[in-house]
């Protein structure tokens, strides 16, 4: 498989903050690659460097064979970029925005219509509406169409699903999987850990450093502990109690259950009997497989 993006030892410092701290990573052609991390992890800085909008302090990167600093001109025609903030022209219509982006890249809507058809068709009935008057979901579809109209080989999507409800997020990921079938490399960033499972491979990013790069399945397989799910009526007091226990490695609330890791060589059976006796008679526990979020927290712990 050929490499679409190569990142070597990339660093970028803003006054007082090391936004990127020696990042290296390779992204294969045609894969959906996710940078997963909270705000401030360095996702946007990385995307701006890879799209030639920002110059790194150290290190180098290539996108589709072009150096992000030297070859900035040719990179710009090869990449599609959808920034986190809606940045189309609000006072142009849907169609005018799309025409504008096609024109800037010296192409026409007709020439590349097949690339955007599946997405654009959904907003085409509103093509005369001003972009500023569109709903959030429609804005997103237009932004994606505009990022694709010049037939990029690599698509960068910076937090496309942040602040978006669960249904629209699901639909957006379905669109990305359809796009993937055209052979496009899709690089996406997100603070939602559960979206990692929808990527072919991910890099977990925290404070400018990569905690891990692998497929979601591999990341989960590398979780170094036994993980238990605990259910009880009074979950919050139970979690507070577990935090105080010396035999506990980590304990976190996960919706309707607690995810617990014990210190090595602690017997779960004996430990649970002890906790039950502390007024948690209804407690139930079972061994479970970790999710990406468990892995991310474990890696944060270590870092």
């Amino acid at each position: 498989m050929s490499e679409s993006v190569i990142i070597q030892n990339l660093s970028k410092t803003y006054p007082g903050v090391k936004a990127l701290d020696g990042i290296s990573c390779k992204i294969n052609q045609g894969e959906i690659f996710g940078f997963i991390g909270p705000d401030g992890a360095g996702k946007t800085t990385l995307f701006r460097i890879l799209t030639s909008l920002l110059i790194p302090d150290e290190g180098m990167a290539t996108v589709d064979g072009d150096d992000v600093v030297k070859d900035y001109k040719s990179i710009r025609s090869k990449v599609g970029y959808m920034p986190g903030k809606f940045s189309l022209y609000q006072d142009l219509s849907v169609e005018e925005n799309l025409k504008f982006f096609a024109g800037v890249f010296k192409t026409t809507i007709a020439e590349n219509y097949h690339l955007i058809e599946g997405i654009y068709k959904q907003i085409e009935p509103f093509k005369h509406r001003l972009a500023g008057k569109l709903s959030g979901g429609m804005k997103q579809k237009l932004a994606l169409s505009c990022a694709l109209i010049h037939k990029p080989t690599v698509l960068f999507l910076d937090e496309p699903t942040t602040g978006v409800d669960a249904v629209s997020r699901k639909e957006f990921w379905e669109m990305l999987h359809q796009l993937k079938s055209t052979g496009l490399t899709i690089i996406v960033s997100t603070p939602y850990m559960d979206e990692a499972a929808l990527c072919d491979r991910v890099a977990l990013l925290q404070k400018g450093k990569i905690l891990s790069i692998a497929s979601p399945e591999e990341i989960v397989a590398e979780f170094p502990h036994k993980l238990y799910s605990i259910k009880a009526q009074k979950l919050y007091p139970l979690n507070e109690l577990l935090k105080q226990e010396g035999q506990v490695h980590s304990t976190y609330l996960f919706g309707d259950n607690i995810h617990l890791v014990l210190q090595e060589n602690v017997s779960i059976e004996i430990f649970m009997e002890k906790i039950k006796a502390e007024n948690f008679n209804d407690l139930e526990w079972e061994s479970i497989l970790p999710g990406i979020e468990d892995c991310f927290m474990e890696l944060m712990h270590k870092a």
Partner: protein
Amino acid sequence: MKTVVTVKNLVKKFGDFVANDNLNFEVYQGEIFGFLGANGAGKTTAIKILCGLSKPTSGEITVAGFDVYKQREEIKKNIGYMSQKFSLYDDLTIRENIRFYGGIYGLSNEDIKSKTGQYMETLDLHEYAKSRVSDLPLGIKQKLAFSVAVMHEPQIVFLDEPTSGVDPITRRQFWDMINAEAEKGTTLFVTTHYMDEAEYCHRISIMVDGRIDALDSPHNLKQQFEVDSIEEVFIQLARKATRDE
């Protein structure tokens, strides 16, 4: 159980558009109430009314015992509010922010001083004592914003996507703070896009197209819809939506 929010037949129209279509619910003292809905379902409109920032078209609504038509200033004094987008002043230091909000809510100098000391300690802020809020890590900023929102000991706090973009460990520490506040008897009214967080709420409502289509404990909703997670409940309901923001 003491009722902190009473909403009867709330309707809010903007011209012909019905943003809130006959909402009915109550929220109790010490309850963590999750207010969910798809983008554009009408949550923000309802929250603005409950915070005394906007008048409903019709309906009987009281918040902290005050009427949303006639006693909106009283409501503002008796609630707390925090959102991801706006919470603290970036150009002020931690102490200046605490003093500012303390002053707005009419706390005595003595109270402001003791709260400041308490937050510096419990949130472990000493290393940031001289930093401006803009220089704080997001997680710390959000925890401080929450503390400031409950500084005047309001009966109810509105939290509008308080954990958006926050790392997973901080997100859980934040919910620990929410739980601790609820145990003290404060009511928490929370919106979130993280469906696992909906499970931390005592009860949740799910809005679709301006209506409340479901309202119960997470446990009961999952049973009612015969699914394993609130995310699946949400998707089943929100899929029926015909309107988009």
